[in-house]
């Protein structure tokens, strides 16, 4: 049994740079993050023989509360989140950095579980964690654990995926049900325990994106509708591409427990966060091909065509309701639910 496990909680001294810090790094972090370039504990890691062309670079911080939730934890979220952000530009994610801000008092067992889950996703996706950092702050200065991840990916030649590339007539698809992550988090929050467990959809999407890019060279936009949900992301697409977005209520997949939860809490699934979903905007002629690719992949079984881009109402997202009426889907106001990711 290593010495670190004799102490059950993180102390300020674990971030001091002294012996306890060293122990934490050697016995916990390096146990799971075992990339050869990390072993030397150098100030910076070198990337040899880097592909010269277009690099994608992205960063995101994760402050989700609670740090464990059905379907995932803050660590899995932090690795998937940055992998997905890189993938949404058509990049193949290669390297990640991980930065931890730990509140003193966090149990080492919980930290270990989170680090293990990060290492697991990185391994599964073939993405290398090659640099990292740990800080410990006093009680109350953070809430248990915050994680930052940054990532580097390479964009294959000829791939041009951007929020700005949407054109009139393009078809919008999604790879499955919306709102699962948001509702999983809300249902875990104090006082809101639903009898049915709702699992977060938290998942790395790089494999699926690779398949999509193989299937069609006419994909214009890829987006992961995380914070703010599908409604917000479609508004962003509409504004960035200077087009209108038309979606159909009947075609948007929502899991029944999520729908019930939304009814109970007065929320709209359109604005709930997703962590394993992507929106594909593709030229009409390739839309069936993309739909097939999605539904043939385990992360896209419930994929659907949900709408189109139109020149009719540039900058606006309009939903055609089940009743045959139309409704503007606007940007949500304010922070609906803080610390969802």
């Amino acid at each position: 049994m290593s010495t670190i496990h004799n102490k059950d909680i993180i102390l300020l001294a674990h971030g001091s740079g002294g012996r306890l810090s060293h122990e934490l790094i050697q016995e916990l972090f390096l146990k799971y993050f075992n990339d050869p370039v990390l072993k030397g504990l150098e100030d910076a890691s070198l990337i040899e023989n880097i592909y010269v062309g277009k690099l994608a670079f992205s960063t995101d911080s994760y402050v989700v509360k609670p740090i464990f939730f059905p379907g995932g934890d803050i660590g899995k979220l932090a690795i998937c989140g940055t992998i997905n952000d890189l993938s949404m530009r058509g990049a193949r994610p290669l390297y990640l950095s991980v930065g931890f801000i730990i509140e003193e008092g966090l149990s080492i067992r919980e930290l270990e579980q989170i680090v293990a889950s990060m290492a697991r996703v990185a391994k599964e996706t073939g993405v290398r964690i090659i640099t990292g950092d740990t800080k410990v702050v006093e009680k109350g200065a953070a809430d248990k654990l915050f994680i930052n991840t940054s990532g580097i990916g390479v964009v294959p030649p000829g791939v041009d995926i951007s929020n700005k590339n949407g054109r009139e007539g393009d078809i919008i698809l999604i790879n499955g049900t919306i709102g699962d992550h948001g509702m999983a988090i809300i249902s875990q929050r104090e006082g809101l325990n639903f009898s049915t467990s709702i699992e977060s959809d938290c998942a790395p999407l790089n494999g699926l994106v690779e398949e999509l890019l193989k299937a069609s060279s006419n994909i214009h936009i890829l987006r992961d509708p995380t914070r703010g949900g599908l409604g917000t992301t479609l508004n962003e697409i509409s504004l960035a591409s200077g087009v209108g977005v038309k979606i159909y209520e009947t075609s948007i997949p929502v899991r029944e427990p999520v729908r019930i939860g939304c009814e109970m809490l007065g929320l709209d699934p359109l604005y709930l966060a997703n962590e394993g979903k992507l929106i594909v905007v593709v030229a009409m002629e390739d839309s069936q091909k993309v739909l097939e690719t999605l539904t043939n992949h385990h992360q896209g079984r419930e994929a659907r065509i949900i709408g189109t881009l139109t020149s009719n109402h540039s900058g606006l997202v309009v939903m055609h309701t089940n009743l045959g009426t139309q409704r503007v889907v606007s940007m949500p106001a304010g922070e609906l639910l803080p610390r969802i990711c």
Partner: protein
Amino acid sequence: MEILSSFRDPALSRRLVKIIRSYEGKPLNFMEFCGTHTHAVFKYGIRQLLPEDIKMLSGPGCPVCVTDSRDINLSLSLARISGVIITTFGDLLKVPGSGGKSLQTAKAEGADIRIVYSTLDALKIARENKERPIIFLGIGFETTTPTVSAAILQAEKEGLENFFIFSMHKLTPPATRAILNLGEVHLDGIIGPGHVSTVIGSKAWEFLPLEYGVPFVVAGFEPFDILLGIEKLVEQCIEGRPRGANAYMRSVKKEGNPSAIKIMYDVFETSPALWRGLGEIPGSGLKLKDKYSHYDAFLKFMPTFKAEIEDNLNCRCGEVLRGVIDPPQCQLFKKVCSPDNPLGPCMVSSEGACSAYYLYGNYDLPTFPPHTPL
């Protein structure tokens, strides 16, 4: 949940729309009292389904919206008392008091303000912080008040001495009377609040046809419910025989919920209340009975405030709440007043008419025909 999808069944709703659209006669003004109805009407695009001769007006049925700025200022004073924990429903946080300060800004400045989903959560906080006073900001109509009564009775049972209520609770029938007495808008029918009526019963609205000759119908919140409510109002207008109707039978009984009514009046008694846009209405508020006055945050802390800065005089929430204007007629609407920067409560609340217009309004979609073909 299957029950929900049947109330959203487009085919059933279309049948009702067909009947409503066949109406031929003088133009009709209906008011949905309840803010949740207003939001549902917008969310489902129900106004687009109505013929031009039938107009829906939004009423004062949003507890946050009708909370007067005086009460917001008093709440802010309570929040600034050292050691106090304020517990409140989330909507109230953003409502600006005089001078633009809100509970949200007070929170950022260090006041301990916690959002709860139920009064029982507030009670839990009181139990866990026995050395600090916990004040629950009690807003809401007859739907919410019984739960507050239950919390008071529970506090009494447990001997909790640090739990207090600032009661801003209001009763809906007196406000409806006030609007009709003012006579600013002509109403041909009122859609009564479904949740409130679940507690007070449909009979609480019988005065509308009897005393004012105005048809009413209690309706639920699904598209089918609302359309059924409208259809029943149209039917009464055609017959020229105003009466009451219940289009929300699966929830509302004539007598309401007697135990909820009992618990409400065991703890509270009626009092005058100040309504935004309507002023003071006698018998429209609820204050704690003498027996429970030791839970009264107002009596305990005697909050005061200096009215140094006037309310925003350009804000027309008052007229919106009375159905006199539609939100887009307010010069602040969408230009300076938005859900991110609300200048009045109707833009803040998830039941407010201004926020419904802002979020779902399709008045800026001129390219669409007013009625989509069925």
